[in-house]
């Protein structure tokens, strides 16, 4: 029927364009992960599962994955909590003025790689703003780039600064579209602010929250720009994430095949994690009772 034609007309151009762009890189990555290829070589050889075997014994890769759990989950949680708080304040009351809303959105608009450079200048141990301020209030300067914990903190700060506004924007938009009736009745019942939040606002915001969290987790797990420009994965490999590790192996040391192998592994793990998370979220957000 003609309906079928239109049905396809909507989806297929976009889907096919996407597939056309992505199909070669994906197939190539799969193939190259089973080779031992470097750029100077003209053809692809066959190395079977050698790269895969190597990966399973590659300690740094797995520890970078573990580190990623910190970077993605901790930063996303912080962003969600702070973003929700900011959204609540900007929803009603004093901070709902234009000035605050615009101000709190600004970090989202800035370029992460560029801001990482700014953060690096702030966390410079000798002439940076952070230590400058600390000395002014009588605290000893901190070795931001040479000890593990402070280096992790700098990345966390940069990520929270950059992406909390993402949560803020999505959650604020969600709050503004909530039905007003339920809040009115809660007000009439004399429910406390805190109870209103937990029993009405939070559950209503669950679907939006889940979408925002999933997208943030996907993006946060690729964390690269800030590490590249801020700590270069240092000190040592203390802030090295998979994205950075496979960049080093694949593009800096030209172990392209091995980089591809790790990339695929990462893809598989990410899809698995997201599927499981999606299931958990779906179960959690199911309306209780009824």
């Amino acid at each position: 029927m003609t309906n079928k034609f239109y049905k396809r007309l909507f989806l297929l151009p976009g889907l096919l364009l996407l597939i056309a762009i992505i199909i070669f890189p994906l197939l190539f990555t799969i193939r190259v992960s089973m080779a031992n290829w470097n750029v100077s070589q003209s053809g692809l050889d066959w190395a079977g599962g050698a790269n895969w075997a190597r990966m399973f014994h590659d300690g740094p890769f797995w520890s970078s994955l573990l580190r990623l759990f910190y970077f993605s989950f901790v930063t996303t949680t912080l962003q969600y909590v702070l973003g929700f708080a900011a959204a609540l304040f900007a929803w009603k009351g004093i901070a709902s003025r234009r000035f605050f809303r615009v101000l709190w959105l600004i970090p989202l608009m800035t370029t992460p790689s560029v801001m990482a450079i700014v953060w690096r200048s702030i966390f410079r141990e000798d002439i940076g703003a952070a230590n400058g301020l600390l000395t002014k209030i009588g605290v000893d300067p901190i070795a931001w780039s040479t000890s593990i914990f402070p280096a992790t903190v700098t990345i966390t700060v940069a990520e929270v600064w950059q992406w909390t506004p993402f949560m803020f924007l999505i959650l604020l938009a969600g709050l503004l579209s909530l039905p007003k009736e339920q809040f009115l009745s809660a007000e009439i019942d004399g429910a406390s602010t805190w109870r209103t939040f937990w029993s009405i606002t939070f559950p209503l915001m669950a679907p939006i929250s889940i979408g925002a969290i999933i997208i943030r987790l996907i993006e946060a797990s690729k964390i690269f720009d800030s590490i590249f420009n801020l700590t270069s994965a240092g000190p040592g490999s203390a802030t090295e994430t998979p994205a950075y590790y496979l960049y080093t192996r694949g593009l800096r040391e030209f172990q392209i095949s091995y980089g591809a192998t790790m990339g695929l592994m990462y893809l598989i793990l990410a899809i698995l994690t997201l599927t499981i998370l999606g299931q958990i979220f779906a179960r959690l957000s199911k309306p209780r009772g009824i």
Partner: protein
Amino acid sequence: MKKIFKFLFIFLWSAFVLAPISWALVTSFKPPAAVNNGATFIPWLQFKPTLDGWKDITGVSGYANLFPPLFNSAIVTFFATLISLTFGCMAAYGLSRFSYGWKHYKNPDIIFFFISQRIMPPAVLAVPFFILLKSLNLLDTKQGLVLVLTSGLMPIVVWLLVDFFNQLPKEIDEMAMLEGCNPFEAFVRTILPLSKPGLTVAGMFSVIFGWNDLFFALVLTFTNVQTLPVAVVALNGTVTPFWTLSASAIFSILPLIGLAFVVERFLSKGGFAGAVR
């Protein structure tokens, strides 16, 4: 108590948001002494502001000129967003109104396929994209970069707009069809005019992610099509002094900050209501 906490949060959060930007702004006007001899914060009081940093990046001193990269970024972002928005909103509309299926893959799986394009770290895709663009003779061209960026931006557009279209009553487009529009005309004549908020949000995210992309631009372009982030990172890689670097940072984030005003305006008018669900 509650009030104190509230004001404290608002104050501290605003200060935190402003901190790095104001630091970069102040630093961009510093003379060498104000940078190299420890942190200084207040212009005129602690140092005499100079324009040297800004001269360095605007081609005045001959050190670097960020205007061509600005132009490149604008062109590439514009076209990548345009393409993503056009095809993305059609796909999203289709996914919201029709049910597709191929074997046991249904609409949610197709939506996940779109989103999953954002999972792969760019470092993995850089090499195959490099080879792809090279064979298409698109390396170091705007077209090539637009193509690659589109694959990352369209998923965002689809993700946002499927939910948006789901919220528009389907009776409106049914009505249009009953009154003589074929499904495509119904989409263009009734759904699109009603979707300005959704399209704005999706377009905005697309612009943000496109403008801010570093990796693909870094690997897939060299001298012809240097984008702003690449240019700034390149400055960072050389012995560029902090004041110049700070000026370049402010220079490259300034254009999009204007977007924050646009977004806020939509938010206040309720234009966003339902744009993200």
